């Protein structure tokens, strides 16, 4: 006996979708140094493997060699607001500051969406106080990117700006890969994608007697890997979110199923990351 997955999500997505190739980043010490200087430091940039890094006691700029991504960090502020900077600006102010900070760095071929504004929260417990004290180290303005109407999923296409109470930016990053559409590919049917998901290792040892599984949302998009990882093409996937309940626990899951079979790609092109490890083939 196997586990029957209950699919409560139906979506429509194109039968043919663009292949989104990426343009390899052209970072070198000089370009990374120029970015670091634009972000406020003249510290010498060093090659640290996955990153070019300019770092001193005041701030750090990290450039990801595997993608068109970078990170900015103020190092002279306390990340837990223990220096008397507890608090946060209002949400609209934080968004305006984030948009202004990111404006020079918006990807040209991306649609931009403010995904959320969240608190960076610290709770401090001491032995002689019954209730923990709450501190805020600012607000995180979280940005998602899309391309030609398609969602860009995963960690490799997003941005964040952390805004402190006084309106200064303590941290920020932009994770991105420049895109180059490279032909088209035929997508698998929704039923086939659901079948592949049901047959995945996630459910291999579960049965209807021992567990219940339900998919509550599905969306088509392109999976992006961490900004440290070279990625010649983004991966077209169906993102499935749902719940799995066993005798011991109930928990939420998010999984990605490859929406395009490798056989449907142009055989002339070199596809080196057809299915990343976190994608169900």
């Amino acid at each position, binding site marked *: 006996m196997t586990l029957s997955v209950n699919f409560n999500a139906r979506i429509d997505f194109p039968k043919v979708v663009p292949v989104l190739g990426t343009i390899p980043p052209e970072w070198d010490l000089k370009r990374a140094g120029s970015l670091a200087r634009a972000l406020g430091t003249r510290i010498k940039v060093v090659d640290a493997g996955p990153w070019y890094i300019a770092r001193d006691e005041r701030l750090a700029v990290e450039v990801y060699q595997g993608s068109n991504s970078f990170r900015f960090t103020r190092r002279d502020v306390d*990340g*837990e607001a223990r220096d008397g900077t507890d608090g946060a600006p209002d949400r609209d102010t934080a968004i305006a500051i984030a948009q202004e900070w990111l404006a020079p760095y918006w990807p040209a071929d991306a649609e931009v969406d403010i995904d*959320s504004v969240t608190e960076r929260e610290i709770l*401090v417990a*001491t032995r002689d106080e019954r209730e*923990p004290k709450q501190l805020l180290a600012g607000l995180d303005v979280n940005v998602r990117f899309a391309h030609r109407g398609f969602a860009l999923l995963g960690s490799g296409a997003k941005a964040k700006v*952390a805004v402190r109470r006084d309106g200064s930016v303590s941290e920020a990053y932009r994770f991105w890969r420049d895109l180059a559409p490279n032909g088209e590919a035929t997508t698998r049917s929704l039923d086939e994608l659901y079948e592949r998901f049901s047959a995945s290792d996630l459910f291999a040892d579960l049965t209807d007697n021992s567990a219940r599984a339900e998919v509550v949302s599905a969306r088509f998009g392109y999976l992006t890997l961490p900004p440290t990882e070279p990625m010649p093409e983004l991966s077209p996937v169906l993102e499935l979110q749902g719940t799995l309940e066993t005798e011991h626990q109930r*928990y*939420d899951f998010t999984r990605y199923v490859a929406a395009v079979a490798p056989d449907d790609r142009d055989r002339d092109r070199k596809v080196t990351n057809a299915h990343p*490890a976190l994608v169900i083939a």
Partner: protein
Amino acid sequence: MGTIGIEWVQKYNGLQGNLSNTKAQAEGFYNTLSATRQFNWGDDLAWDQDFEQSGEGSPTAGTDTTWADDVDFVFFSGHGSPSGFLFGKSIDDAVARPGDIAWGNRQLEWIALDACNVLERDGVFNRWGWPVFEGLHTILGFHTTTGDEPDRGRLLAQYLNAGWSVREAWIRCCQDTEGSATWWAYLRADAAGTDTYNDHWWGKGSVSNDPSNPTSLFYARGTC
């Protein structure tokens, strides 16, 4: 050079859904950090009692002084919940629960629990509070669910090797590998004469004295 150990679970033998990338994730940490490697237990060889204190909780079969509490840094990758982190082999009860745990009274300084919801905010001090911290510096984890992904352990090790503090390295590797719906979290202890906020991996910067009798616990969380 500091010492490390890892445990990971992909096959849950019907107790939970299986996972696909915990081995790669944990071994990425193990094979990348500049450290002396002490143990690597996976699937049916990963046991909850390796993390539990002898004589604590129920059952009381803990052996952490031989395993988790006998190294400087442990990385666990598998399922989790606010009440503990989960194993696929019922040697004990297949759950390492806070009530079974006292870390740092032998060696452990840092532990990464790469598992869903272990450091969920509500009630975190009641679950993972004072009894757990007996010299332990920091627990790294998540407030929310997190992805079954292969890169985070390696990235954590790369950031530590590059000289970032433990908390900076954890936040960075989480932001690199998760969407912004996921919340990283950590819980650290301090006492008079300690400074775990500025902890680094051994040989890469300052390391605090052990907060053997902590006076403050700091819980932090933010979106990836």
